[in-house]
């Protein structure tokens, strides 16, 4: 019950209901007030006119009219009386001239007790007093008790209209609150399961487009992304374990056997040398992984600057040229236009080096590789095309994943981390890298050195320091 009252849906409905009640009350109060003012004014006018009319009548007729009016009045609604110049009652149903009543023919509001002290109730009365030509005094009055009745009617209407609406609204609010609570409880159950490791769980979401469903859909998206990352991490963990265990188990077996079997210094030396190679391989993997993590998480913004991509491509080619030469591979450098990217020179060098290294590795001997640097409409780009086997479209996303190595490349040495490194560098810069197959086979890797939004998140943000008071421009005088 308490949780329903605390639910946001109930609170919202309750606020609306209270606002509705206040509005209704104000409306009724206004209607009553306007009606009362109008009625009072009407009765004022009526009594004043009657008083004037009666006063003009000749003496006999005047007395007759006053007597008739007071005789017909059984409920103390209408009063009429004529008093002598000395204040004694001549005719009518009042006992005295109301004390304090100005005798000027204008309407005044008095209490009934002022008219007749024997009546204890405080009924409001409109009274007009006037002095007749023969010095007698005419007093006419009319009770406006009916206005009080009007007020009672208004309050009754208010009660009849508003209270059921209020009850209905609160009930509706509680129902909504209850339903909201049910949904939230269902979500909590699911999220609790997610927290305990069941990442495949999803929040119930209908396609109604309500805010709740939209929220559920968003959370489900987030859960999907989390699940993917965790699975990827799990795969990476497995792959690390596998790729580390392979050389380690080899080293272990090698050393164990060497210790048992080797009898000569040379045999032992050879075994140890092979063991060291295996260990270097294992630590190389760890180093590469740490580098990737470092690139992904470090603050590199400070080292960002303009980088001449043609120059970097030249240097990469200088580094890798001899190795391509040794395989009889011709690397053609195609510089069509000047291309300057904003980034970390060392990292861009590494990314391009990794792409070229890959291209050389997968290109058969005596074939060719092309490295092109150009200023594409989308931004400066480096394109490296090889004449190797290419990558099937379904594998293209996977090759960037850590440790992913296509089956056909298992025989080629490497940690399988080169493209992951490229991906990490590219992401750090907000750039993009894509793979495609050439028309005549081979793989085309394109590094586009432009950010989508045109800004780089690694850039140091402006500190937004407020201007110092003494830096405000001084007023010019004279």
């Amino acid at each position, binding site marked *: 019950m308490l949780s329903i009252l605390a639910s946001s849906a109930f609170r919202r409905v309750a606020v609306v209901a209270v606002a509705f009640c206040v509005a209704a009350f104000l409306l009724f109060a206004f209607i009553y007030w306007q009606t009362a003012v109008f009625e009072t004014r009407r009765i004022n006018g009526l009594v004043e006119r009657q008083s004037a009319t009666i006063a003009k009548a000749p003496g006999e007729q005047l007395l007759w009219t006053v007597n008739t009016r007071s005789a017909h009045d059984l409920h103390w609604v209408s009063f009429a009386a004529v008093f002598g110049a000395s204040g004694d009652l001549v005719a009518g149903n009042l006992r005295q001239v109301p004390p304090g009543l100005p005798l000027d023919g204008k309407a005044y509001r008095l209490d009934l007790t002022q008219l007749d002290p024997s009546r204890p109730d405080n009924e409001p009365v409109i009274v007009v007093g006037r002095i007749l030509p023969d010095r007698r005094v005419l007093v006419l009055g009319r009770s406006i008790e009916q206005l009080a009745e009007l007020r009672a009617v208004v309050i009754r209407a208010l009660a009849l209209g508003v209270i059921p609406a209020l009850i209905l609204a609160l009930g509706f609010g509680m129902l909504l609150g209850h339903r909201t609570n049910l949904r939230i409880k269902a979500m909590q159950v699911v999220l609790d399961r997610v927290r305990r490791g069941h990442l495949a769980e999803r929040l119930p979401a209908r396609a109604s487009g309500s805010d709740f469903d939209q929220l559920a859909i968003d959370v489900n998206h987030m859960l999907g992304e989390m699940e993917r990352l965790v699975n990827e991490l799990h795969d990476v963990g497995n792959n690390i374990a596998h790729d580390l265990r392979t050389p380690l188990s080899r080293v272990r077996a090698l050393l164990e056997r060497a210790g048992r079997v080797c009898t000569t210094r040379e045999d032992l030396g050879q075994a140890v*040398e092979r063991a*060291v190679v295996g*260990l*270097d391989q294992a*630590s*190389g993997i760890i*180093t*590469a992984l*740490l*580098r990737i*993590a*470092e690139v992904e998480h*470090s603050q590199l913004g400070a080292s960002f600057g303009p980088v001449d991509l043609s120059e970097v491509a030249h240097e990469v080619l*200088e*580094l*890798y040229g*001899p*190795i391509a*030469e*040794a395989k009889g591979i011709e690397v053609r450098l195609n510089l069509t236009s000047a291309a300057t990217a904003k980034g970390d020179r*060392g990292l861009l*060098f*590494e990314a391009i*080096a990794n792409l070229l*290294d890959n291209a*050389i*590795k997968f290109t058969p001997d005596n074939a060719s590789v092309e490295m092109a640097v150009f200023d594409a409409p989308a931004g400066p780009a480096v394109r490296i095309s090889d004449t190797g086997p290419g990558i099937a479209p379904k594998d293209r996303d996977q090759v960037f994943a850590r440790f992913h190595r296509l089956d056909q490349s298992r025989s080629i*040495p*490497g*940690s399988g981390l*080169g493209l992951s490194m490229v991906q990490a560098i590219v992401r750090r810069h907000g750039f993009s890298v894509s793979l495609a197959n050439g028309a005549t086979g081979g793989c085309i890797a394109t590094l586009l050195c432009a950010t989508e939004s045109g800004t780089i998140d690694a850039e140091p943000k402006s500190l937004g320091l407020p201007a110092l008071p003494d830096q405000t421009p001084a007023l010019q005088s004279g």
Partner: protein
Amino acid sequence: MNVLEPSLDSRGDPNDSCRILLIEDDLEMADTIRRDLSDNGYDVAHAASGVDGLIMAESGGPDLLIVDRMLPGIDGLTIVQRLRDRNMHMPVLILSALGEVNERVRGLKAGGDDYLTKPFALSELMARVEALLRRPSENRATELRIGSLTLDLIERSAKRNDRSIDLLSREFKLLAYFMARPNQVVTRGMLLEHIWDCHFLPQSNLIDVHIGKLRRKLDSPGEPQLIQSVRGQGFILLPDA
């Protein structure tokens, strides 16, 4: 302290023996490094904590300091900074199991002269220690001459005996690096860092291919090989005459 004193006093050959202070908290690692350095003729003292290491470095004034980055007590970088603050300018080699580029930059900024990431090959450590101790003096020579090889640093030309050798600029830089360090093992890592300014390890056996290319230019048939490979370590320039 009590480790340093006896080893300082027992300096056998005052001409040759360089005193190295090793500050490393992994005792097994320290023992192996110490033995290897001793085998190579160095006089080694060991401190297992940052505090001991700092005291020993300040009082002993070793010729070279090898310091682990992460130590109990005072960390490696602080030690180096304090020594530099006190105007002690012995070469410092920082060992670290921490990441690559950023940590390396921090290490060198703190006053380290070289930075080696764990795990490393002992031969790499030896080569770097030797390189730090035998740092080429800042002379104004315009010509380097090792055996039959002559390098003109002004004209950027190379000659072996009278045969002129046509070198690309990077090859020239590579050869000059070797000629400044004759009879000294140079590792692939050192070459990558100093010649190519490259702080990642390319996956392919790049350096060997570059050396091979340089060798073919340097050595005519019948001439002895100037740059020789040292198995499991790197390369060495041996004067031929």
